[in-house]
């Protein structure tokens, strides 16, 4: 299968994630959107690695997954802290700072 398909899929996923960050109205979904973006990048790393016949691309993916996990941990902790203040997951509820 030519690499173009993988890259196109990765581009679509990245765009879906990026659009989600701006369009979705739920804090958890916002987190998921960012994760989709990172995983889209992972897909392209693996595809490029395979195209070049080296394992570097797949190794990089492990680093990225680790980082994404750490990021998700902090993100979820922040969501919980926010929820305790307002009992809501809607970003519109958090407007004490000008956005």
């Amino acid at each position: 299968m030519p690499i173009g398909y993988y890259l196109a899929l990765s581009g679509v996923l990245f765009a879906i994630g990026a659009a989600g960050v701006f369009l979705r109205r739920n804090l958890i979904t916002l987190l998921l959107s960012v994760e989709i973006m990172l995983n889209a990048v992972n897909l392209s790393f693996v595809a490029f690695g395979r195209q070049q016949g080296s394992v570097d691309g797949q190794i990089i993916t492990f680093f990225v997954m680790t980082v994404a996990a750490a990021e998700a941990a902090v993100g979820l902790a922040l969501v919980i802290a926010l929820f305790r203040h307002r009992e809501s997951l809607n970003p519109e509820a958090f407007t004490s700072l000008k956005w």
Partner: protein
Amino acid sequence: MTTYSFDAVIPIVCVILAGLVVMLAEAFRGRGEKMPLGGLAVIGLVGAAASSVLLWNRNATSFGVVTADNFALFLNLVLVAVGLMTVLITAQTADRDKLPAGEFYATALFALVGMMLMVQASDLLVMFLALETMSIAVYVMTGIRREAVNGTEAAFKYFLLGAFASAFFLYGVAFLYGTTGSTSLDRIGTIVASQAMAPNPLVLMAVGMLLVGFAFKVAAVPFHMWSPDAYEGAPAVVTGFMSTGVKAAAIAGFTRVFLSALEPMIGYWAPALWVIAAATMVLGTVVGVQQTSIKRMLAYSSIAHGGYLLLGLLAGSDVGKASILFYLAAYALTNLGAFGIIALLGSYSRDNDNLRDYAGLWHSHPVLATLMALFLLSLGGFPPTAGFIAKWYVFSAAIGAGYYWLAIIGFLSSVVSVYFYLRIVVMMFMTDRDARPVPAPVTGIALAGLALSLAGVLYLGVLPSQVIEWAQASVATIF
């Protein structure tokens, strides 16, 4: 593969160890037991500074991905100064704000590890990991006062847009990896240079993605919207820390990637960066003028300063790179001083960060008012302070490289910005205080920190030649 040298990572390891020790000391101490956690942090930072000085001119590299060239070492010293000032101010404010001191110091040290690694990275994957180490720690610091809804909200906004930007950065790395088969800056540079005439579209996309990622991190327009919120919502100490440390690390990474590996593509990214730099300077100043919260005002001022730094990056010459280093040193000392004063004047229940809170400060806190005035004058670029020399140096680099219009825009916006710095000064010295409560008097170790940073600001302003020489030596040997 040759033998690995561990020399280049010694400054980073010092800070990691200090962070771990502080974290464990906090975890194992008995209830109510006093422990000099700040002192432990200072020891680690001094170790990092000492090892950076010892590594000077040795161009050590470790594992092929971390380099300790003079450029990185100079910035390591700036970052250590940022860390020291943060520790000194926090020593004073942690109890007042009911911050968990050990956690705070440990997180700050881990953020510094990320910054130093980012400055020293010569491989894009390592730079990404450093960026995330730094960012995740700073998200936590922004929201460290969980009971304050402002802080948590600021932390989440910062987190969301920061993670978004990191994804862009990483996508750029992926494209470069796809076209060159490597994440090492040296190899990427060689391959990109060989096809500079007819670049692969993937390389162009990579340049765009990396530009977006870095522009987010340095809070350049139009990717700046997180920064006023994050700077306003975070505790003032943290604002000082991230407006200097994060910016220094991000600009350093920006410079290293765009002026070494991607320099052959300068014809493609320079026009975009021109627009970004101009917009950043103008918007940071114009919107800053309208603010009534000092923290928010200085947030916009810090956006504008990011624009001046991009001017040095765009100039790209040796003078330009040296001017970036000098500017970062001057800006770090000045901005930390100003935010340190804001932090010291706040109280647990009130930030005291409205412009009106500074009315008549000269009568209640003459020393702090004088220090604040000097820091603000330095931010505005008045002689004989560091800010003046730094701006002059950056603008002359831009003119030397032929960016006349950009230098003029920068000069004009810096003239306008004087208005809002002086507004605070006038408020402090010439306005009477209304019924607002007077902030508590400030004494102790934090004043020593402020005095040190003032000494630095005046030294750089009056006798800059030595540091300029070091800055020039820093860029002479590399890229």
